[in-house]
């Protein structure tokens, strides 16, 4: 009887221990990677268009600041740029902005990234929401994919709540660029 109780207790203890280990080991992260990356995180960006320059600057600075300057996005005014942000009226599209990485999202290294911002759809957003859209696209330029985790800058749709990169976004950067 004692053996039986002892065996049962041991079994439960082992299961609990393993479960606990898994919870400790298992990351809370939900970030997704596009499959490609840059060879460096010191990247130049160029703003093509007169509108939303301040929002774009704030978004770039937020990636620099919240990654502890692991990401170093610097604005250039004519020299070679790695990332080009174009703002134009693209009409009544279903999206606020898009990011295109070259040669492809899976490429290592990326050679170029282009972000297209639809001024028509951003016109009804607040400053901070516009900043969040740009920060989202810059996340793609850096190699991060969409996540469904609420509160992340890389949420694929709606839900303005991050403004600047959050822990999961930053974890993604550190995983991609160890």
């Amino acid at each position, binding site marked *: 009887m004692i053996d039986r109780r002892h065996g049962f207790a041991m079994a439960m203890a082992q299961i609990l221990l393993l479960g606990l280990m898994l919870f400790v080991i298992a990351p809370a992260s939900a970030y997704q990677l596009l499959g490609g990356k840059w060879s460096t995180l010191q990247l130049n960006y160029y703003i093509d268009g007169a509108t939303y320059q301040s929002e774009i600057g704030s978004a770039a600075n937020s990636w620099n600041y919240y990654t502890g300057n692991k990401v170093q996005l610097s604005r250039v005014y004519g020299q070679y740029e790695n990332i080009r942000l174009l703002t134009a009226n693209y009409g009544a599209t279903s999206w606020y*902005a898009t990011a295109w990485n070259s040669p492809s999202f899976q490429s290592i290294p990326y050679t170029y990234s282009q972000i297209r911002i639809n001024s028509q759809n951003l016109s009804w957003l607040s400053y901070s929401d516009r900043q969040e859209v740009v920060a989202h696209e810059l996340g793609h330029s850096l190699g991060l994919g969409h996540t469904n985790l609420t509160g992340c800058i890389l949420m694929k749709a709606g839900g303005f709540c991050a403004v600047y990169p959050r822990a999961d976004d930053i974890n993604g950067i550190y995983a991609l660029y160890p």
Partner: protein
Amino acid sequence: MKTRVLSVITGLLCVITIAAGISYLASSNGQQIPESVAQERVIVASAKWIKDFKSLREMTTDSDLVVVGVVTDIGPSRLIGDSPEAADAAINAGAIPGLLVTDYQYKIEQVLKGKASVGDIITLTQTGGFWNGLTQYIQDDPLYELDERTILFLQDISGDSVLAPNEQKYTINGTPQARFRIIDGQVFPVMEGDALANELRGLSETDFVQMVLQVVAP
């Protein structure tokens, strides 16, 4: 004997737990998004979508037109905001060309909401397309295919100065969440990964249509 049996069960449970843990770790972190297209001359974008529907009711209520139908024709793609010469130069240089938009003819089989009739052919507009040997599309919203049968929740963009000046056109309502393929009588969301897609995936076409109709005319 009982102790031995108990030990075996415990061992099995441990193995199952470890396997589940490894599986969880493999699936939850740093997973690469598969891309089903060849990289050569195919450019795929990622987008921040305008809308994020939490329910079929919300999506139905918010849409101008909800229809079942089929893509009958794919029009030529056109550039928005860039000249053809600049796009060609970009393609030849291996760079990223301008933004493409394509119109599709879509024949309505059933109207679930909105002003349209069965048999009408409407024009759908989608970002992406084909240009000089290059294919361009947005990751969550692959280009429509000929004979693709779908249930669509649409936004009327007629008169939009860029996409539909002096024309009647529709586009997907704020997110590819609003696009469902019908395959062998079952409904499949085009954009995966959110709770609504998980809820609706695999429903029969009949059940899905009934659910929409209940929202429109309860």
